[in-house]
C-alpha cells in the first residue's frame, strides 16, 4: 500500500485520531470531550476508507457519529451542569501506568511477531459483506437484530419513570 496521497492521508489521520483521543483524556469539560471523541470516530472511519472498507466507514460515521455521540450529548445535556465535569479520579496514575504497559507490550508483540502479510487488495465490497452476513454469519446476524430489539426495549424500561409504571398498573 503506497502512494503519496495515501501516505499523507495516513499520517494526517493518525495525528488527528490520536490527538483527539488525547483531547478526550485531557479535556475537563464533558462536552468538549464528546466533540473530541467525534473527531476520533471520524479519524477511525478515515482509516477504514484507507483500508478499503467503504461500507463500514460509512456505517461507522452513521452509527458512531450520527447516533452514539448524539446520544451521549443528549445524556450530558439531560444531566445538570454540575455533572459536566470530566476530571479524573485518584486512580489516574495506576491507569496511566497500566495503559502504558499494555501499549508497550502490544507494540513489542506487534514489531516482534512475523506477520503473514499479503499486499494484495482482497477486494472486499459491500456486496461481499452483505452475502457473508446472510450466509456464513446469518446466525450472529439474526442474534444481533434480537440484541438490538432487546436493547431498545431494555433502555425504554430502564428510563421509564416510577409514576408512569404506577399509572400504567392503575389503568
Amino acid at each position, binding site marked *: 500500500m503506497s502512494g503519496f496521497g495515501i501516505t499523507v492521508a495516513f499520517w494526517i489521520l493518525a495525528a488527528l485520531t490520536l490527538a483527539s483521543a488525547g483531547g478526550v483524556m485531557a479535556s475537563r469539560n464533558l462536552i468538549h470531550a464528546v466533540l473530541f471523541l467525534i473527531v476520533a470516530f471520524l479519524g477511525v*472511519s478515515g482509516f477504514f476508507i484507507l483500508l478499503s472498507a467503504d*461500507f463500514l466507514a460509512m*456505517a461507522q460515521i452513521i452509527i458512531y*457519529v*450520527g447516533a452514539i455521540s*448524539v446520544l451521549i450529548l443528549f445524556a450530558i*445535556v439531560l444531566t445538570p451542569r454540575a455533572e459536566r465535569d470530566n476530571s479524573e479520579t485518584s486512580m489516574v496514575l495506576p491507569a496511566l501506568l497500566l495503559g502504558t504497559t499494555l501499549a508497550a507490550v502490544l507494540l513489542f508483540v506487534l514489531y516482534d511477531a512475523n506477520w503473514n502479510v499479503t499486499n494484495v487488495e482482497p477486494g472486499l465490497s*459491500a456486496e461481499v459483506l452483505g452475502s457473508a452476513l446472510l450466509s456464513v454469519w446469518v446466525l450472529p446476524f439474526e442474534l444481533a437484530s434480537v440484541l438490538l430489539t432487546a436493547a431498545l426495549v431494555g433502555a425504554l424500561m430502564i428510563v421509564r419513570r416510577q409514576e408512569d409504571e404506577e399509572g400504567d398498573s392503575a389503568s
Partner: protein
Amino acid sequence: MLSFLATDHWYDLRDLANLYRVVLEGLDHIFPTGLVYVLTALLGFIAFFVVFVLPSQLYVGVYGERRLIGRMQARQGPNRVGPLGLLQPVADAIKLLQKEALTPRSADRLIMWAAPVLFVAPAILIFAVIPFGPRMVFADIPVSLMYFLAISSLPVIASFMAGWSSNNKYSLFGAMRIVAMSISYEIPLVLGLLAVSVLSGTMSLQGMVYWQQDIPTWMILIQPIAFAVYFIGVSAELNRTPTDIAEAESEIVAGYLTEYSGMRWGLFYGMDIAYALGASAFAATIFFGGWSLFGLEQWVPPWLIFILKTYLFYFVFIWTRGTLPRLRIDQLMSFAWKFLLPIALINLLVVAVERLIWTSNDLPDAIVWAFGAVNIVLMVGIVFIWAKVFKYDPKKRPTKPRLVNEPGGYRPVDLEQGGPSL
C-alpha cells in the same frame, strides 16, 4: 450502456468532463504529477462552485426563495438592488461580512467559533458523490448512498455545538430539539432509501441513474412510499417548514442561531440552503432519474437536465415553507415513530419481496411497472387504513363555528345524531 452521442471534443459542452479532461492533460505536461493531482481537484472544485453551487445558492436559494415567497405572500420581495433586485444576495453578503460577529461573554468561545466552520464542511462534501452527468461525478464510490446518509448526519453535531456553546436557553432548546428530531427522522429516512437500494440492487448513485435510464422509469413512480418518507424525513433533517422546530422563530426566537450574528450566521444560512440543494439534488438523482430524461439527455446537456430537476425539487421546499404552519415537537416525534417508521418498514418488506420475485424468476424489466402499480395501490391503501384506524374524516370535522341568533349561556355541543365528530 453509454448510447451517448457525446464526443470527446473539449467543446462538446453536453459533457463538461471533456473540457475538464483536456485541462487536466494540458496541466500534466507542465506540472509534476503530485501537483496536478491537487491542482485539478482544486480546479474542478472551483468550476463546480462557480457553475453550480454559488449561482444556486445565491440566485435560487436566497434571491429565488425570497422572490417566490414574496409572491406567495402578496408582496414584492427584493427589487431594489440592481435590476429586479438581482444584486440583493451580493449586497446581503457584503452586509453580513461587515457586521460584527458577537460572542456572548459566557459563551464557549472556541466551540461557538468552530460550529459554523464544521457546519460548512459537510455541505460541500455532500456534493462529491452526486452525478451531474454520465462522467460528471467527483467520487463515484460504490456506497454513495451510505455516504450521503453519513455526511448528512454531521451537521446535526455542528448545530448542537452552536446551540450549546451560545449559553442561551433558547439556543439550548433549539439544540435539544434538533438532536432529538434528527435521531428520530434518520431511521425512517435510512429505511426508505434502503428500499430504493434494494429494488435497484445498487448503492451507487450513478448506478441508480443508469438503472432508471435502462428500465426506463423514474423511481418515484415505482416507489412513491419511499419518496414520501424521504421527503418528510429530509425536510425534518434540514429544518425546513413544517418541521423547522429547531429554529422556530415564534417559539424559541431563532433556536440554535439566536446568539449568532454577522458572517457566522451567514454561514449557517448559506449552508442551510446548500444542504437543501444537496437534498434536492439527491432526490432528483434517486427519484427523478438524475441526469437522464428518457433519451432527451443525448441532445440536451445532462447536467442542465439535472440542475433543472434539482431546482424543481427545491421549489417544492420553498413552496412548503411559504404555506404550511409548523408542527409541535411531540407531534413530529410521534409522526416519525408511529407513522413513518412502520410505513417505511412495510415498504421495505414489499419491495424486498418484489425484488425477490423479479430476480429469482428472471422476469423482464417491464415488471417494474407492475411493482410500481402495486406500490401505489399499497400507498393509497395504507393511507385509507390509517384514516380508518384513527377515525379520521375531514368531512365530518367542523371547520366553522356554530351560529346562534340569541345570546344566552353555554350551548352544549350536540354530538348525537349526525353531529360533528371532533
